[in-house]
């Protein structure tokens, strides 16, 4: 075990926008994710974000890409395990007004105190103060490309 800083990078919570990018075969985002996989960076995949992405892109390839995301060594699906989590999700939906796909991401990020990895930072900034603790956001963007 390392004795240097003792700090490990927290897992990134993958949001709907990133899952949709994977389902749409966004080569840059997929390669970025594979880069983090190679580094050992943990990713958490809220299961409803995967559902939302599959609904967005209704093809067999899209579903294969999403299942491939789950197969990454350092990726773990966050499911809705029990009634307590289901009720907690309902509370997040009611508090934030987010869709279930996004609310599940927020609920997982809030419970795990981990940053949300997203292509849509403005949406999350709008909701970052909706819960008791602020949500932390990491935006995927190419700084050399104009924001669109």
């Amino acid at each position, binding site marked *: 075990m390392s004795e240097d800083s003792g*700090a490990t*990078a*927290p897992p*990134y919570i993958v949001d709907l926008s990133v899952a949709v990018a994977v389902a749409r*075969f*966004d*080569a*840059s985002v*997929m*390669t*970025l994710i*594979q*880069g*983090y996989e190679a580094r050992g960076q943990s990713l958490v995949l809220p299961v409803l974000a995967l559902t939302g992405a599959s609904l967005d892109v209704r093809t067999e*390839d899209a579903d*294969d*890409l999403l*299942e*491939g995301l789950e*197969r990454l060594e350092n990726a773990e699906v966050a499911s809705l395990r029990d009634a307590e989590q289901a009720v907690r999700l309902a509370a997040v939906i009611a508090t934030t007004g987010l869709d279930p796909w996004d609310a599940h991401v927020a609920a997982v990020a809030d419970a795990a*105190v981990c*940053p949300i*990895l997203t292509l849509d930072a403005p949406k999350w900034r709008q909701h970052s103060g909706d819960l008791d603790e602020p949500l*932390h*956001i*990491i*935006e*995927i*963007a*190419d*700084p*050399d490309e104009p924001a669109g």
Partner: protein
Amino acid sequence: MSDRKARLTITVDPHLTAYAEHLVETGKASSVSAVFNDAMEARIQRERRQRRLWKEAAERADPAKVARMMAHVDAQAAALPKR
């Protein structure tokens, strides 16, 4: 790995057992073992297809763009409050 078939003891959910037996009874499969073999083969092919798609993405991506995106993500991660 040997090409010889191995005897395997597995526990299967009742509805899957019933379906496998139905396939055998209706002549759609030669045996329950064949059903298991086909299912595993299909899974292997599906996982290969998934890996191939992810590999294709890496081949198509612009490495410079991905490097800039990764640096951008890393900078934000470094600025987060420590847990």
